[in-house]
């Protein structure tokens, strides 16, 4: 009897020792995991799941007009995309648009930021007014400029056509000028945002270095080229990344003004994808274009991050 009691005590003792103890650190970790869980689920549901669906659909021949005839085709959609002349044209158009718009916005934005650098009521009031175009929806921007540049009733377009600056079809109706007009419209909307980012970068520059250079007799151009520009490079690259990613996905402005025309002159990748998906209901091909855009934007971002790190390291060495 006594032996039995001892055994049961031993077994119960061993049970107690193996039971996990909820210490404060473990409670805290569990609490933090639970705090993160909604964000994690949200990202999975809103970002990761649609991405995986896109990759899945791109491997199928899938048309919503014939949903029953869905068939696995592997990488055939990607091969068809490269073989399609219109698709290759869309890649070139998107690249030209992105490069031109971002370059123009950076040049104008840097100029405006330098002019607004002085901290006074006048500059602050103008900055607030300059930011108004950023607040307008891109579709509304497209509609405004389509109305303004119309060669028959447009306040600007009529006189441009009358004075012989544009053809009788207006800037947006001419394949040679349509893309450049869209670049100008995009620059009109987004230059103030680039100005704001660069102005924040300018205001965070250490003033003692600039004052020392001024005291040493450095001219304005020398100070800009040798001090301001190198120290501002990380901010410039940041603005370039943000704008490149956005310009590469441009849709609203082009949809509202030219809808990809005249011909295919302004047919960007996003417009191509939307037409494939929502006009021809070809979900497989639309997903293929969307996936390629994601890859392009990811490559952009990686390249820019490497550039930013390099520029940052150089700025710190100085």
């Amino acid at each position, binding site marked *: 009897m006594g032996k039995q009691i001892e055994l049961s005590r031993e077994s119960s003792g061993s049970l107690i020792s193996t039971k996990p103890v909820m210490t404060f650190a473990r409670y805290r970790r569990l609490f933090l995991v639970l705090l993160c869980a909604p964000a994690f689920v949200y990202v999975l549901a809103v970002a990761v799941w649609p991405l995986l669906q896109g990759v899945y659909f791109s491997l199928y021949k899938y048309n919503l007009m014939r949903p029953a005839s869905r068939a696995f085709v592997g990488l055939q959609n990607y091969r068809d995309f490269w073989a399609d002349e219109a698709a290759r044209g869309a890649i070139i158009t998107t690249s030209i648009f992105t490069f031109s718009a971002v370059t123009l916005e950076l040049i104008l934005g840097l100029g405006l930021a330098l002019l607004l650098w002085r901290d006074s009521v006048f500059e602050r009031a103008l900055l607030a007014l300059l930011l108004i175009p950023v607040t307008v929806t891109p579709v509304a921007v497209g509609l*405004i400029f389509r109305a303004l540049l119309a060669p028959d*009733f447009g*306040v600007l377009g009529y006189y441009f056509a*009358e004075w012989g600056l544009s053809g009788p079809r207006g800037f947006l109706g001419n394949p040679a000028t349509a893309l450049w007009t869209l670049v100008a419209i995009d620059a009109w909307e987004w230059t103030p945002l680039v100005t704001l980012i660069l102005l924040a970068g300018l205001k965070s520059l250490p003033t003692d270095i600039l004052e020392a250079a001024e005291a040493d007799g450095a001219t304005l151009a020398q100070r800009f080229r040798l001090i301001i520009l190198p120290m501002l490079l990380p901010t410039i690259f940041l603005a370039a990344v943000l704008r490149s990613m956005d310009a590469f996905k441009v849709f609203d402005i082009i949809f509202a003004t030219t809808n990809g025309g005249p011909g295919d002159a302004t047919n960007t990748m996003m417009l191509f994808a939307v037409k494939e998906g929502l006009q021809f209901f070809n979900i497989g091909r639309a997903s293929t274009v969307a996936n390629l855009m994601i890859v392009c934007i990811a490559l952009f971002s990686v390249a820019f991050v490497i550039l930013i790190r390099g520029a940052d390291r150089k700025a710190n060495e100085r």
Partner: protein
Amino acid sequence: MSRRPAVHALVFQRAVLLLATCILLAPIAWLITTAYKPSVDIFSFPPTLGL
């Protein structure tokens, strides 16, 4: 003597800023005026600002 170039530069700088602001706000101003115009005035030929 040295203050004059500084004042000139400030005036030039602010003139450029005002010009840029006018260019950036002109389409918005046109949008606002259009909202208060009858459609006959909006689609007049030749088009007028008709403020």
